């Protein structure tokens, strides 16, 4: 059995704790009394993955079994989550590929021959052929990719978008035409955190900027408390409104999967153990790795981390009607991630690792680091934020990993020009978002290269809007000072310095909480 999440108060017997910081980590001695929130240990995986998939397809939630929805001559579209999930990338075979194989087998049995597979990447970058192959598996890739039946969604291909109308709040719904006109749209999801899945899958994954702009904006993000709680998230409210209109137009068969917390394979598995339980072997591994990282050239360090493949176990698979499926999914996600926490603290400390949803096989530039820290990790709560209103957030990341020109061309302009003028998400959104979204060069790179859409850095900045609105102080430990200043934050060399800098806001003996991510956790703050 797995152990639940754990809250530790640092005392004089507590060893230094591991804190991630980009392509590396450090051991940090926290002040006595610091509250450390550890994620729960991994749930057991289902014993037979293929059997679990077949069971889900044959016994769906609030829908007929999949074979009964398939018929000869129909138009079938299978959409699936892109490379932004899971993090890190799953060791092959990817669960999406395994599900798609079963779906295709059933479709073939029913005589369905008009099938297309679409990566639901929305405004994310196009995946390479190798990345697509990794997700769908070699056999599916070989059967569909050469014929152009397996492809990335293109949110700028006006001829292949379909406007399905607007919600009662006036939100445009514009999604993939192929998906909208299919007799059945099957969505294959990977739910790593509670934010994913549900109506976010089709309504966002296959949507254009025209549709996304209604919820991906600073105002909505500030009102989303939190992103991990779809009932209190303005972004999810919008996605749900959009999803319900889609559901009335398109028959969607949702397949959602949940994974356990087995992120780090051997010999890196010590990274997800609690430090005082490290064996001698774990300590030796840690020292060897730390030493190796300190002397490794940047390229090797990058390769070392980005080549890491996780050994996730499948904890559940559910299929059928979107909302019914998502309810089941959330139960499982919460079972894996929820940690009960009593009350808020003055200071929240978080270490930002090397990877986020938008830098797979790339670098975590300062904007993405901000998104990871103040967007995803800060929002890893339900109830109320871990840190009190007006408190301080301390993050660890060097903030110097350059911008990848292939994947993040518009980020450079956003950083150099937009943030130089203002770091207020509402202000920059108002003034610059549309200009970036409609820039023909960014559109071209998004459509033909492997670049994130021009508007994407704005979305990353919006993710941090709620945190920026909530706390008074953001300090980065070990960061490049000039970069931190450009982002509107401050930099400190050590935790002690950061606490000293924050003392004007939170006093000289603040209550501190360290969110021991990754693996993922979801703080249920009461």
């Amino acid at each position, binding site marked *: 059995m797995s152990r639940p999440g754990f809250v530790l108060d640092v005392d004089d017997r507590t060893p230094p704790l591991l804190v991630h910081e980009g392509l590396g980590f450090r051991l940090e001695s926290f002040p006595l009394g610091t509250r450390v929130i550890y994620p729960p240990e991994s749930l057991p995986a289902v014993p037979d993955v293929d059997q679990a998939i077949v069971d889900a397809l044959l016994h769906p939630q609030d829908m007929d079994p999949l074979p009964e929805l398939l018929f000869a001559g129909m138009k079938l579209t299978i959409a699936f989550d892109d490379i932004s999930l899971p993090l890190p990338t799953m060791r092959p075979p990817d669960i999406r590929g395994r599900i798609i194989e079963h779906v295709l087998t059933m479709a073939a049995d029913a005589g369905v021959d008009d099938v297309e597979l679409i990566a639901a990447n929305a405004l994310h970058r196009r995946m390479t052929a190798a990345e697509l192959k990794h997700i769908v598996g070699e056999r599916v890739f070989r059967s569909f990719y050469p014929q152009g039946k397996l492809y990335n969604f293109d949110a700028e291909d006006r001829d292949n978008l379909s406007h399905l109308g607007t919600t009662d709040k006036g939100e445009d719904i514009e999604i993939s035409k192929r998906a909208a006109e299919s007799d059945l749209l099957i969505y294959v999801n990977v739910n790593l955190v509670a934010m994913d899945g549900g109506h976010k899958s089709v309504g966002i994954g296959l949507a254009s900027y025209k549709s996304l702009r209604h919820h991906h904006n600073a105002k909505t993000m500030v009102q989303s408390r939190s992103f991990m709680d779809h009932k209190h998230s303005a972004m999810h409210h919008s996605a749900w409104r959009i999803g319900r209109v889609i559901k009335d137009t398109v028959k969607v068969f949702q397949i959602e999967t949940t994974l356990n917390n087995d992120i780090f394979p051997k010999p890196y598995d010590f990274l997800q153990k609690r430090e005082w339980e490290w064996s001698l072997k774990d300590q030796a591994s840690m020292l060897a790795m730390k030493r190796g990282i300190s002397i490794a050239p940047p390229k090797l360090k990058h390769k070392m981390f980005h080549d890491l493949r996780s050994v996730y176990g499948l904890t559940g698979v559910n299929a059928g009607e979107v909302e019914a499926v998502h309810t089941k999914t959330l139960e499982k996600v919460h079972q894996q991630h929820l940690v009960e926490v009593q009350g808020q603290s003055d200071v929240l400390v978080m270490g930002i690792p090397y990877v986020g949803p938008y830098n797979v096989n790339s670098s975590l530039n300062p904007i993405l680091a901000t998104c990871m820290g103040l967007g995803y990790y800060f929002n890893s709560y339900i109830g109320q934020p871990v840190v009190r209103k007006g408190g301080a957030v301390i993050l660890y990341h060097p903030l110097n990993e350059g911008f990848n020109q292939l994947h993040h061309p518009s980020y*450079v*302009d956003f950083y*150099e*020009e937009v943030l130089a003028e203002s770091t207020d998400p509402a202000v920059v959104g108002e003034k610059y978002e549309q*200009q*970036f979204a409609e*820039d*023909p*060069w960014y559109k*071209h790179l998004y459509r033909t290269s492997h670049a994130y859409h021009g508007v994407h850095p704005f979305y990353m900045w919006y993710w941090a809007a709620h945190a920026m609105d909530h706390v008074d102080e953001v300090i980065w430990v070990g960061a490049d000072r000039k970069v931190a200043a450009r982002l509107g934050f401050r930099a400190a060399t050590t935790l002690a310095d950061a606490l000293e800098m924050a003392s004007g806001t939170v006093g000289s003996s603040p209550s501190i909480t360290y969110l021991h991510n990754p693996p993922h956790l979801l703080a249920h703050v009461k």
Partner: protein
Amino acid sequence: MMLALEMFRSVPRTVAGRAVGGRMPGILSGFAAPLRLMTIDEPKVDRPGWARLKTRLSGICGSDLGMLSGKTSLYFSAVVSLPFVPGHEVVAELLDDCEDLPAGTRVVVDPVLTCAARGVEPCEACVTGATNRCSRITVGHLSPGLQTGFCKDTGGGWGQQLTAHRSQLHPVPEGFSDEQAILIEPLACAVHTALRAGVVTNDRVLVSGAGSVGLFATLALRQLTDAGEIIVVAKHKHQKELAREFGATEVVAPGEVLRRVRRSTGAFQLQPEFSAPYLLGGVDVAVDAVGSKQSLETSLNATRAGGRVVLSGMPAAADLSAAWFRELEVVGTYASSQHEESFRIATELAATDAVQQLAKNVATYPLHRWREALDHAHSAGRLGTVKVAFDPRSTR
């Protein structure tokens, strides 16, 4: 006898200046400059329409610095006559009556030595008023010299006295300070630049450089054309502030030009091998107000196909591939043209608040501190000065 700085023929000094002047500008004000402080005879007036002038202020122009550093192309060696007293940005007072102008009148000098000044029949250009294109600048009763300040017979502003023809003289309005008046000649050049730029309504314009040439070009473009966005390339903080005051829509650092132009024009960007990136698309008009290879190539690379690149600074050798490939109009803009009434318009511009403020920062030096003055002029951008000038009346 009078005191003057004299540019003389010295091959070793010119070669030395050319070799190291770019990296060590200070050396140009030391042993390497072919310039000396001399006591020489005052210039004589023995030609009709000419008068003697007593210099009040005379600016140091980029072309003067280029000449001293040996960077100027040998192309110009045929249109100067050594030794000469430099200084073509001049505010002075008349020592003699000059036709309708009585002695004592304060004037600024249009330095171009045209047919009228040389006492020859007007050439085709001078007939039309395009005096800056005069074809007779090496003949007549003067030694060769494209301008006052490059001709051994006229003297120049870097001496206590010089001579000028009535056609060159423009009275300074009452109330103008000498520092304000010294800016009229470079402003007249900027007026000509703005009019040569062929800007049509809402054109996007790039001005590469925010020294006096770039700033005045920006002002003239904003005041005299219907340019839309004007992006100015500025290196230093005070230049950025001034560029905005003078009408820039956006001010960018040299390393950011292409990226900013690309985004604001929706252009596509290419990265050739071992070379600077360039745009497919870009601004409608670019004004190179520096004259360096990098600045000129930036202007060429940031201009849309069929657009216009205006050479306002004296240009260095550069890769002209873009001009060919993108069918750019490369347009030179030299001095100012009488038919455009550049000096009248420039005088109006010199009365604006922005130029008045700028005039308060003109740094002046006596002639004997010429090494300091040149050092200052070389580093003017970094030191926050837009114009450095000699005051031959001053002894301290």
